């Protein structure tokens, strides 16, 4: 959406201030449309009443993201691909993390195939209060045999409900895969200069999104996109070509930048589609698995940072997935608001009067790190999350948002009754050690202040020596 003024959106709203969207005025709702925190459909009168039909359509067109949003997969595991509005994250935020699709091939032994699919679809890591996962399976036809491909796709579907990318340039192979999987809305990879007519027919028939692969040729890519668009096929993803190394790698990045700039800064609608990158290509350049894995991560970083919308990858080992997953998370974090939790007292497990009371801040990264360190080690405890405006422990000790007065007040506000506790005490983060004396004084000596380890990952070991307090 290029529109920056709420007033211009307000024009297309019912202007009744009915409040059904959760705002008191249509103007406030219009502002929420601008920063994309609300969707047009959430103004139910506009979406449902016939008399507004025209306004509804106009408004939807205005607020549509600059880069087309393409849906892959169905149900809970459906993936949003593209749908971005800005070139640099600080201009607003990036919205839809590029799904990572990990490859399997139709020449794998069945047992190995099932094991790999399970490994991909069960991979998870706890980060900032949520489980982070990878999203998709890319099924590659290396056999060239339609029957084999269909069987492989079927096996994948029996093993997981993760959405798929069906990879082959042979329309017969693709057809075999689509006959099995079309209802799960897989992404087809890909139409190219040789097969595009047949692939166009296929994706039209099965109504699935498709990648247009015209590597290192933006003119060709654009004209193919125009052709598909004219045939009424709109869910397109562009493969600009991912070179794994050499001078061509620079060209790959330049082509991605050109496509994004054309779409986001120059408003060129006929090229404003999501893009696909193939970090997996790193594996075709070397036999050394560590080198291939590291290089795949480096390629992933290049294209995540500059906004490619979906990726095909290979290495599912922790030293590959962890950095790539975190980088993607960091780049797609909304820079407009620090991620916070509600301040106050939280229970972890089933705390009793013999349990410890941990103090931390309300910065989500900090709070959830501490909570998960405590919970996953089966420690029953209270955690007091102090309102530091969403700043972590170390930074808020330095900046003064975490201080003894605030801690005392927070416990007062929560009506926390230390006299009921067997060991009336609180555990401070190691990084806040410097004000433990002052804090003890403020509590009038009624609450013992213990200084915990600097890293909450060490709380378990710390408790072995210091809990219960002597």
């Amino acid at each position: 959406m290029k529109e920056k003024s709420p007033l211009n959106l307000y024009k297309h709203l019912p202007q009744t201030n009915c409040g059904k969207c959760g705002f008191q005025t249509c103007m406030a709702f219009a502002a929420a449309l601008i920063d994309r925190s609300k969707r047009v459909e959430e103004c139910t009168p506009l979406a449902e009443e016939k008399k507004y039909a025209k306004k509804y359509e106009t408004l939807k067109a205005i607020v549509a993201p600059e880069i087309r949003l393409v849906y892959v997969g169905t149900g809970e595991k459906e993936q949003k691909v593209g749908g971005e509005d800005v070139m640099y994250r600080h201009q607003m935020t990036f919205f839809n993390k590029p799904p990572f699709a990990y490859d399997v091939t139709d020449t794998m032994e069945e047992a190995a195939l099932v094991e790999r699919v399970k490994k991909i679809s069960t991979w998870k890591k706890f980060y900032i209060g949520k489980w982070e996962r990878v999203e998709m399976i890319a099924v590659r036809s290396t056999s060239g045999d339609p029957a084999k491909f269909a069987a492989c796709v079927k096996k994948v579907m029996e093993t997981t409900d993760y959405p798929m990318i069906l990879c082959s340039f042979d329309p017969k192979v693709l057809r075999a895969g689509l006959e099995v999987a079309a209802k799960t809305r897989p992404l087809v990879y890909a139409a190219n200069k040789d097969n595009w007519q047949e692939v166009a027919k296929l994706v039209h028939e099965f109504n699935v999104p498709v990648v247009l692969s015209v590597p290192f040729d933006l003119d060709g890519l654009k004209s193919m996109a125009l052709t598909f668009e004219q045939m009424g096929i709109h869910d397109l993803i562009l493969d600009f070509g991912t070179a794994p190394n050499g001078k061509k790698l620079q060209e790959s990045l330049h082509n991605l930048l050109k496509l994004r700039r054309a779409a986001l800064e120059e408003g060129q609608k006929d090229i404003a589609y999501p893009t696909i990158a193939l970090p997996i290509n790193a594996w075709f350049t070397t036999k050394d698995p560590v080198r291939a894995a590291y290089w795949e991560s480096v390629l992933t970083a290049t294209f995540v940072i500059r906004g490619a919308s979906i990726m095909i990858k290979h290495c599912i080992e922790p030293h590959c997935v962890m950095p790539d997953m975190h980088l993607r998370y960091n780049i797609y974090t909304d820079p407009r608001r620090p991620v916070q939790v509600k301040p106050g007292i939280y229970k972890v497990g089933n705390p009793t009067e013999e349990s410890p009371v941990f103090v931390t801040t309300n910065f989500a990264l900090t709070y959830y790190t501490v909570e998960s360190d405590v919970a996953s080690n089966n420690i029953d405890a209270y955690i007091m999350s102090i309102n530091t405006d969403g700043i972590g422990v170390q930074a808020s000790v330095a900046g003064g948002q975490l201080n003894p007065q605030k801690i005392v007040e927070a416990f007062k506000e929560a009506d926390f009754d230390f006299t009921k506790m067997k060991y009336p005490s609180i555990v401070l983060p190691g990084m806040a050690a410097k004000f433990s004396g002052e804090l003890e004084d403020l509590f009038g000596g009624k609450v013992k202040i213990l200084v915990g380890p600097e890293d909450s990952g060490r709380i378990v070991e710390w408790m072995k020596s210091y809990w219960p307090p002597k």
Partner: protein
Amino acid sequence: KFQVGIDETWKYPIQEVTLGATKADGGSRGHTIKIGGEKALPFFYDAPMPHRPVVTMDVFDMPIGMAKAVKMHYEDVINDPGEWAKKAVTKFGADLVTIHLISTDPLLKDTPPREAAKTVEEVLQAVDVPICIGGSGNPDKDPEVLKAAAEVAQGERALIASANLNMDWEKIGRACVDNGHVCLAWTQLEINSQKELNRKLMKVAGVPRESIVMDPTTAALAYGLDFAYTNMERIRLGALKGDEELTFPMSSGTTNAWGVREAWMVRSPNKEDSDWGDRMLRGPIWEIITGFSLAMAGVDIFMMMHPLAVAYLQEITQTLMG
């Protein structure tokens, strides 16, 4: 036909800064290194990158705690900064080395400034690449330490790390001017503080434009990289658009990556996480991705530790330059 323009608002180049001085310029380095000079965001097609981002490898003047994956590469030189520096350059391909005078910290050995400065001479003799000189991070003592170090390295155009708003930055700035060095201006993730410090270094301490590099702070992958990345990208975009208080090359303390638990912990403290695998493989890639992301945001010089991380950072940035 597909057509697209370049960014017309990027009109102002980043200041080019030379590190090191050869005999001809009053120093003793074998060659000099230029950083900065960009006219566009890194690796964009708008304008070629004039120089590959460079790596300066950390050397400490006393043994310090390091992650296992890092330590194994330095065990044989940990008590000898000169040999350490040599190994970094000849074996690991460091473009520069940084000698960190951490033993001057009153809480560590409290080494007097004059004595600490001798280690700088040792390093200058051991290698002929340009060098950086770091203090201990103690804001009260660093100005004295860095002044003494700047004096023994007179004429070498070392990068002096660093001046900060909460210390006597003026003393450090002047020591750079008087002895012909480059001043590293360090602030914590805040664009306006960075402008303020750069301005003060120029206007009050008299540091010339071509002798300033900025360190806007590196927060590592998964531990605030989102802040560090965006802060640097905004600084660089602001500079290209003509904000004269920001048109300087940037430096990153990439070694911070080793503070992240994912880089060094044996296994996840969270029992339900998928297996974290071999930490010897996780650590280097954590340093690579932390550094490389910031290379994409505009960093010109990286302070790093793991040999593999250094090699990959050099290779990918060179490749993306074409």
